[in-house]
């Protein structure tokens, strides 16, 4: 088994499965922060998926997408937190 096959037939499915698990948490909630955390983790896993996929398809440039993900993903988490606090204050 060469590395590309290993990556695409073993690693990627595991990562997908992880994604699915995280998504289940996203659906279950129960609170909004739970969902936000799940979303955050989804994106982190996404970075891994992209990295692995970059190797599978031999496209180093995919790494740049991962870079963008890493850079700005946390911003939506910050935004959600901001929302939660602000709303609390407004109540």
């Amino acid at each position: 088994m060469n590395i590309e096959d290993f990556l695409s037939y073993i690693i990627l499915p595991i990562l997908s499965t992880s994604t699915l698990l995280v998504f289940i948490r996203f659906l279950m909630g129960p609170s909004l922060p739970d969902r936000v955390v799940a979303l955050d983790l989804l994106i982190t896993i996404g970075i891994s998926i992209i990295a692995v996929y970059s190797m599978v398809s031999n496209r180093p440039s995919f790494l740049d997408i991962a870079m963008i993900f890493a850079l700005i993903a946390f911003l939506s988490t910050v935004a959600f937190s901001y929302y939660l606090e602000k709303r609390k204050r407004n109540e």
Partner: protein
Amino acid sequence: MTVFLFVILASFLFSLLLFGMGQKVFKRMTWFASLLPISLFLYFSSFAKPIMNGEVFNFFTAWVPSMSINLDFRLDNLALLFTLLITGVGSIVFLYTTQYMKGHPKLMRFYVFLSIFMGAMLGLVTSNNIITLFIFWELTSISSFFLIGFNNTESSSRKSAIIALSITGLGGLALLAFGVLAGQLTGTYSIAEMLQSPEIFANHEYTVYLLIFIFLAAFTKSAQFPFHFWLPGAMKAPTPVSTYLHSATMVKAGIYLLLRFTPHFQNNSYFFTTLLIVGAITMLYAAFQTLFKTDLKGILAYSTIGALGIMVFLIGIGTSASITAAIVFIVVHALYKASLFLVTGTIDHQAGTRDITKLGGLRKVLMPLSIAGLIAAFSSGGFPPTVGFIGKDLIYEATLNGGLNPTVLTTMAVLTNILMVFAGLLVGVKPFTGKQPVELGRIKKPHFLLWFMPMILAALSLLFGLFPAMVESLFTHNITPLLTGEASPHLAIWHGFNLIILLSAITIAGGIALYFLWKPSHKKESSMIKFNVWSPKSLALKFADLFQRLSYFLTRTFQNGYLRRYVLIILVLLTLVFGVHVFVNPRIFLSVKEIKELNWNEIVILAMMLVSVIFTVFTKSRLSAIAGMGVLGYTMCLIFVFYGAPDLAMTQFSIDTLTVILFVLVLYRLPKYLKLSNRTNRVRDGIIATSFGTFLAFTIIEIMNETPIKSTTEYYAENAYILAKGKNVVNVILVDFRGFDTMIEISVLAISAIGVFALLKLHLKKHEK
């Protein structure tokens, strides 16, 4: 040519001149306005001689040649008759008005409208181009609208104006439809040239439309039953207007049109039969109505309708005798009716009332006027030796020799004429005879013009009666052959004792008897009101009201303010488009193979996508919905990653993040989540959304089976680096191949930023709103 064009346009320019003078200057020289009709009358009179000798004058200037719409005027004898009537009666009315409306604050405006009207009328009767004719025709309707509504402070006159305009406007559009169709079929808009295609007017697939449209045009304008009702309403206008527009000239435009096209329809029996029937109904109906009116102008209005009915009826008989009768009757009617109107006007002006039941014994104060009234009434009744007598003779001659059923036709004519005698006497004689009611008080003597102008018209009635040859040589001699191809019968006041004379005598006797036996009263007038429910007017108004309510209902139903309903309609339409496509054109390309080839990653992505969509739709919290949207965007990113679109993944991801931030910043202000729409709505929307999605998916699958040649894509692949020096082809497309799209795209961004800024920061002060 230039001169003639100037003459036609003179009235419009003149009206502008008056408008420019302003009310103040004009007030001091009201006589100035009368220069227009008088000089025009003189101008047209100068054509009398050559035209009597059979000459025809053509004036042609190209206007919109690409549409063959030209300033094409043709002055033949028929046109001349009308131009003389228009300018002649016009002169009298203009002069009369200077005194009748003396000191009126809006006198200038009145003359402006009147001048426009005159110009329009002259253009109408001299146009040889059917479209140009229509243009002037519409202008008469519009100026009539302004003149009827001239007493703009009274709501009744405004209402009458709108009714008149609606009816004549409908006719106008019909005339346009007629003109365009005739032009289309004959290949020319020239009325004279249309004569060269007689078959079009006689028997063609579209002839029925030609008939419908010309009738609609003529009947509305000339107040034929059942369109007549606007005319009595039009009497809200000042009396000179009624005199001029609604008895002597404008209402005859329809008659003119019918006469003008008589030669064209020569071989079309439907044309004549319809005219006969409609004319007959109109004249009998209107004449009968005069019995129940107490307002002098009301009586005159109905007698005018009756007279118009008689003219249509005569044209409908379609013989040379009847046409001749019609032409003579036009002259007769114009003279006596204008005279009677002016008489009425003076009475009104001096006595302050037009109620026939309150008038009497005015001969002492208004002696000259009473003479004018008497002559006009006699002419109206066909008493010899007025020209009315000749007219009546000709009518009976026509009916007796009319093809269809002479007895019936003659009976109808006699009946109508008896009532016309009655009406004439009622207006022209009754106010002057008997005792003067006390309520009238002291009546001042009128200004010279106020009795002299009707007197001129009355005198002319007498003059033409005494010298019928004048009418013959001026008009009938040429016009009858022009319209029928046959010579006109000789006009004379005395043809010896015959059936016609007998009928005349019966008519006069009957009329006089009626005058003495039937006293008009308000009681009788109101007794007729209960029948009014079925009158065309009230039916039309009812229809209008119904239509208004229907409009309101439909507008409120469709434009009900509920955005969701609007959206729903659009989407239902779109669903239909795709649905019909799928059902009419089913091409299904589902293959199991594809499903088998799926790998786990793809299944996960699809599942996540699906579930996040469902989650976003059904979650009960706004923020969760937005988070769901985030997941959806994320799965889109993954798809873009897997299928070779890194730039897309990047952009989608960053935009999604920004969108989430935006939402979050805005949302914390909003109240708790929404009221839910009711179950029925949700089910309905669900069904629509689902079927839309389904049909769309089918269509997409179908499109994916097309195999387009992607020459553009190939070109980009080959040349992105070589010619555009970039290796990221998507970016090269964005900044080079299709770079301008990006330029515009950033403009869109710029605009939206400005918009956001303005929307949130701009707070107008109260006075700025």
